[in-house]
């Protein structure tokens, strides 16, 4: 559905996007994950026709958009990282206006606006001016505006940044529903857990380069042969950790919290002997489970960037620009 080859964009001496290539399949939700300034928004801008690539090709639904970015604009919906509807118009008027930009006739656009306001839980606020909406409501209406013409491809740039937990959760549900209904979604985010929950495949982008693209399950399975088991114990995890290290020198043991121990090994961990050892030491083992590395672990390993730092940076930037 989206084919990108050798896409490059520089602003002066700064190379914002450096020779990236990827493809997004029909009906797929594809995540673009990276820190601030990685080139996510520049990539979306080039794909949607808001920026001109310096090099490379873009094909959307088979249409070559490299030379004529307008050619595929009727097929795409765009939700920018900041809500950019008209503050002086009501929610209903905003949606009707956006529909008219795609040539929808009056009756059709009004019916579609009503339908989306209902779906997004904004029917009660339909007659209120957009400028008076809360951040969560603004994001929802901006997404509704992005899909007003029922595009087969939707570009979402940081859809849940700067909004409350409940609204973010609802927006994720709506995005998942859109994808389930067949919309191809290209999602940029700095929330790793959001990408992990929503996307089928993810590309990690750092300093304008894609450092890894893979399916989520393949990314998290590739653990370099490491096996991790986590034990929940009744007491004194620090002492128990020392005991394990002494008895099983081939295992790396670390205390996660006061009652949780994590044991890592290059081969399968023999849980039975460890549980026996812990019980012999007077501990009650309430749980032993294999730990799968999170996407965050993979991201940190692949990019060398701490996920927490990335999130904080983005939130700070979001506050700064009023997003």
């Amino acid at each position: 559905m989206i084919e990108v080859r050798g896409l490059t964009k520089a602003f002066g001496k700064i190379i914002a996007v450096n020779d990236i290539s990827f493809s997004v399949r029909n009906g797929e939700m594809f995540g673009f994950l990276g820190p601030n300034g990685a080139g996510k928004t520049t990539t979306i801008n080039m794909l949607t026709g808001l920026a001109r690539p310096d090099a490379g090709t873009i094909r959307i639904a088979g249409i070559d958009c490299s030379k004529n970015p307008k050619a595929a604009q009727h097929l795409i919906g765009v939700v920018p990282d900041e809500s950019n509807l008209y503050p002086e118009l009501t929610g209903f008027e905003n949606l009707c206006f956006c529909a008219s930009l795609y040539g929808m006739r009056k009756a059709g656009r009004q019916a579609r606006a009503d339908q989306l306001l209902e779906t997004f839980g904004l029917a009660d606020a339909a007659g209120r001016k957009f400028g008076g909406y809360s951040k969560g409501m603004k994001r929802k209406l901006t997404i509704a505006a992005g899909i007003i013409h029922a595009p087969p491809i939707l570009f979402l740039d940081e859809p849940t940044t700067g909004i409350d937990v409940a609204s973010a959760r609802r927006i994720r549900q709506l995005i998942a529903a859109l994808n389930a209904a067949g919309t191809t979604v290209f999602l940029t985010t700095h929330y790793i857990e959001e990408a992990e929950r929503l996307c089928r495949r993810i590309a990690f982008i750092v300093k304008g380069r894609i450092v890894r693209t893979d399916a989520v399950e393949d990314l998290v399975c590739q653990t370099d042969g490491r096996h991790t088991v986590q034990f929940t114990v009744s007491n004194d995890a620090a002492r128990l950790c020392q005991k394990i290290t002494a008895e099983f020198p081939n295992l790396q043991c670390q205390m996660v919290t006061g009652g949780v121990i994590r044991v890592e090994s290059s081969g399968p961990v023999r849980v039975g002997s460890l549980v026996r050892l812990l019980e012999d030491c007077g501990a009650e083992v309430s749980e032993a489970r294999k730990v799968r590395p999170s996407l965050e672990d993979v991201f940190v390993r692949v990019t060398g960037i701490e996920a927490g730092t990335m999130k904080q940076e983005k939130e700070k930037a979001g506050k700064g620009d009023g997003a």
Partner: protein
Amino acid sequence: MKSWIAFWNILTKDMRSYYLKPPNISWGVLFPLVWIAMFSIRSGLGMESLPDLLPGLVALSILFGATSVLSVTVTFEKKGRSFERLLLAPISLELLMLAKTAGAILFGVVNAFVPILIASLLTDLSAVKWTILTPVVFLIAVSSTFLGLFIAVSVKEVFEAQTFSNFFRFPMIFLCGLFFPIEHLPVWLRPVAYVLPLTYGADVLHASIRHAGRMPLTLDVGLLAAFCGILFVASLRNIRQKWIA
């Protein structure tokens, strides 16, 4: 057809959101009234001098009406990023910008007829050549609007749009031959007058209202149309280079 639905809705939205707001309507009425009063007091000749003042009043009403609102609203929408929404619409940039400017052109034309309407109540306008006046009012509105567009796409901030507008407007008012003939200007200033679109608009206004044009009508209209084309093409080029960079 789909593009024209977009065109019409951009135009009507802008009319509702910007041009038909009470401050703009009162501006359109008050502006020519104040100028009429000011010039009448200054000349001391009373209402019989109104036809002499009318070309200037019409030109000023169009120039200020068309350039002010457009340059500010486009800059405002660009800054608030709602302009991106328009750039993402599947319509050509040319049609999009014509839709954005159509409201300002209409506003300029309506503004032009306010002083004419007032003058018609106060003095005899039977000598006015309406068949020349009406199209030239439209052409002046188009050129003033495209000047506003050129200003809007050359600046980043709303306050810059205002300052930059005045940079063009005030010299234009005094150099275009509205209030004193270009021949009365110092020799070194005259070339400047001839590169201002309003010079040619003002000449046709003089010709149609006072029968006192100094240049051939076809030359005036041709050059005015050329200015419209140049300003529009230059604005589109700026948008492509700066906003879709």
